[in-house]
């Protein structure tokens, strides 16, 4: 059980040219002067190019705040986040929007598809927003839809699709712009177990075959077991890190379960 207490090595934070993302000493404070809450309390880690990583933690551990900071939806209080060699915490609002459309892809728990648009148009929107040439768009959208198995629902509207189909369309929208980094916030949170498994396989495929770098926030150990590495957050700080290494998914899942059980047990004792 030694690894339970292992801390991320400082060597990672030093960074290398192969890093897609570097998070350095990020703090995020909410509230006024009288009532401060440290949602993130000095978080540091790196994500390598082509890595599939999960962030886990109990409710209130700060995992969604961390993801919001990386996705530039929220601003950090201090620290820096470097993507592709540029510190995004110093960007202006216009640069942030450009950064989001050029370098990031999003998958949300509740899909966030635009319900007035067809599946095809939802995927194409990621490209039109970037100002991609119109003649290239149809081919790219169809190719991505084929890869992710949603070419049958391209002409349907979100309300005509199942949850799993919606999430895969969302994944196609995230991937089609060829982003540096894909951020997924509880992507299986609204799906039943079968659709979850399909979705996770899709994300695995995106990672393996298409070379996408994915950061996934989840509280589901099964979902986390599909990744290469799991970071555990607790009370706004990194608590543990697990790597899949050469172990099978089942073994990795067991190890993740041990940590989550420990975390929830600890929470229980703390009361």
């Amino acid at each position, binding site marked *: 059980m030694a690894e339970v207490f292992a801390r991320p090595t400082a060597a990672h934070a030093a960074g290398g040219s192969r890093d897609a993302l570097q998070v350095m000493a990020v703090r995020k404070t909410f509230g006024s002067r009288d009532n401060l809450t440290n949602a993130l309390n000095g978080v540091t880690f790196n994500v390598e190019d082509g890595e599939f990583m999960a962030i886990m933690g109990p409710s209130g551990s700060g995992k969604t705040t961390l993801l919001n900071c990386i996705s530039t939806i929220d601003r950090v209080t201090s620290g820096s986040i470097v993507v592709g060699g540029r510190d995004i915490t110093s960007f202006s609002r216009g640069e942030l929007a450009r950064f989001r459309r050029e370098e990031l892809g999003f998958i949300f728990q509740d899909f966030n598809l635009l*319900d007035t648009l067809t599946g095809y148009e939802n995927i194409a929107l990621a490209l039109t927003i970037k100002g991609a040439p119109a003649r290239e768009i149809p081919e790219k959208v169809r190719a991505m839809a084929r890869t992710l198995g949603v070419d049958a629902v391209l002409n349907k509207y979100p309300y005509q699709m199942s949850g799993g189909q919606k999430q895969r369309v969302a994944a196609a929208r995230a991937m089609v712009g060829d982003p540096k980094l894909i951020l997924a916030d509880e992507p299986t949170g609204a799906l039943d177990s079968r659709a979850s498994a399909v979705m996770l396989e899709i994300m695995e495929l995106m990672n393996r075959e298409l070379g996408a770098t994915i950061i996934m926030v989840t509280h589901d150990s099964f979902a986390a077991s599909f990744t290469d590495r799991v970071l555990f957050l607790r009370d706004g700080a990194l608590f543990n890190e697990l790597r899949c290494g050469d172990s099978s998914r089942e073994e990795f899942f067991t190890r993740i379960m041990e940590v989550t059980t420990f975390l929830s047990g600890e929470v229980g004792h703390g009361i």
Partner: protein
Amino acid sequence: MVFKLAWRNVRRSVRDYAIYFATLVFGVAVFYAFNSIESQQLLFDIQSAADAKQFQTTAGILGMFSGVIACVLGFLVLYANRFLVRRRKREFGIYLLLGMRPSMVSGIVLVETVMVGLIALVVGLLLGIVVSQGLSFLTASLFGVIMNNYQFVFSQSAFLFTIGCFALIFAVVTVFNAFSVSRFRLVNLLQADLRNEKAKVRNPWVCAIVFVVSIVILVFAYVRLKENGLLMLDDPAFVQATAGMLLGSLLFFWSLAGMVIGVVSRRPGLYLKRLRPFTLRQVASRINTAFVSLWAVCVLLFFSITCFSCGMALADLFRVSVEGASPFDMTLNAQVWVSPTGSRSDAASDPAQRRVEMEADAPERLAQAEAADWDMASVLQAADPQAWTDTVAAWGQVNLYSAPGLTFRELADVLRGSGRLSEEEMTYIDGVSGNNNMQMVGVSQLNSVRALQGQEPLQLGESQWALLNNFTATERYADAMIAEAPQLAVAGIPLESSGIFADTQLEDSSMTSSGMMLVVPDAVVTAAAEQGFIPEVCYLDLNFAENGRTAEENINAVMDVVALVQPASEGGFDNGPGSYGAGEWAGRLWPVTSCTTQESMFAQSRGLRLMITYLALYIGFVFMVSTAAILAIQQLSSVADSTGRYRTLDRLGCDRRRIYGSLLAQICIYFLVPLGLALCHSAYSIWVMHDTLFQLAATPMEGPIASAAIFLLVIYGGYLAITYFTSRSMVKGALQTG
């Protein structure tokens, strides 16, 4: 507690209420202002009873229309209110969840409605009082009077009427609200936001077909309208045109969005640009769900624009036409023997038979007239010589006869050979008055009336004809006839053209309307009389003596003389000056069946101008505000429902500038689509009316159209701008809270 909660709610949702409130205030203000017109009378030195009567008529008709306007405003308030309640379903759900009784929730809504209503009523009335002061200046200019004793006008009756109407509207709203709140189901209330709105999507092929059908129907309606010419409103062509426009417009809105999306989305180069798919889909889904209200908006807008611009043109028509149309102080009018029932359509079609008919039905009248040789003045003078001499300084009489043996069809045949008129114009002459005889007047009688208005006498040869015309509509035909100079035979006497053209007004009237009358030597009139023709109409034109009395006193003096020669048993001639007394008795009364005075004609023209201008302003304004408010409320509520979508766009990395751009585009399209179709309909209708009505009266349309455009730009554009800025701040708020 209910009051505290309600007050907080109102203050918090000021933004939601802004458009509703503004519209209410406008409604109340305009309602009060137009109903207060009657009391503006105080401001002006209205001397004659005729003017005072016109004022009352205008006020009365505006009051009648206020009923319609109140209904429109009531509908608007209900509609806006329904949106506001729907927007807050979740909030009501929480109240219920916390254990509040439904009656209490209804109470909160009630107090809120009443609070907003009361404030709007007070503000609206204050604004209305200010506006009505402004209106009194407009009244002064329309009535052509100078306001030398300006004072603050407050109309108590309008005040109470406004309060009454709006109290009724709010009562209905309150009942409606209480009812809808009591019907809420808790689960629906709480999940109102989560309910995934099914986007209304229509098959593009069906849409394309329906769209084509709608265009065909509209074209058909346009063609029928042109045939009808907007003159006869009970003509089947007009009914078909109206039904076609309504149906065509409805199908147009039903199919438009699906058709456009179907076409545009098949062209990636056009469609896949920035936020275009999003913008178009948003608007399309709005249009598809709200096509019925867009249709209603389009119809109301059409009505508003047409009403406003035609009303203004018509008002101008009355101003222009009365000039020169009433050159005499007074005209006594004798419609000689119309028919036993007094209706012209019952009269014998052959003018030569009229004497026979009159002899059978009113022998004593005919005997009296023929004894006096149809001279009205001699009969009246004999009744009270002293009063006549005191009152009347000069007079002249014209008798209009049907020209024996010369119908308009025969004239048309003569003119057709000239090639000066198009076939269409010939058909017009033929169609309008083909079977009617031309009218003629003897030259010496005409000269007596010309002398009365200071014109030189006409010199007409023994066997010559001249032409009298001052009616704009028939000018072309008159010109053609003078130029063609045909030889005519009237009552068997051949006549050559003298080439003389006269534009003499024969009587006091609201417009110059002597059209295509033949001026003939007196011998021709004598010959016609010998053939058994009697006059159609006699006009006795009077100028009053300089006796120090007012026009009104002189008119009354003449009326007293007229009363002496009317058989008391017939009755009827008690409608007073200015009334065309064409009742059942009219045909029997010789020498006078009705009278017109210069004063009453001017007053009538002023009154009509006032009434038409105010009606056009009133209806135009209320309809325009109502439609703009409906669109604004719909857009705002749609934006409120789709803030989540804008948040998604923001997360996908879309620039704020483009998001706001898309918002502006959506609002503009949504506002301009119904306006576009309405403008198209209006332009066409105005063009048709211009061709048939206004062109005949030579009224320029540029001014009215320009003022309608300004009117439209300010009100409609204003609402559009408010809607955009309000929605932008809503979206901005949603993006900032993340």
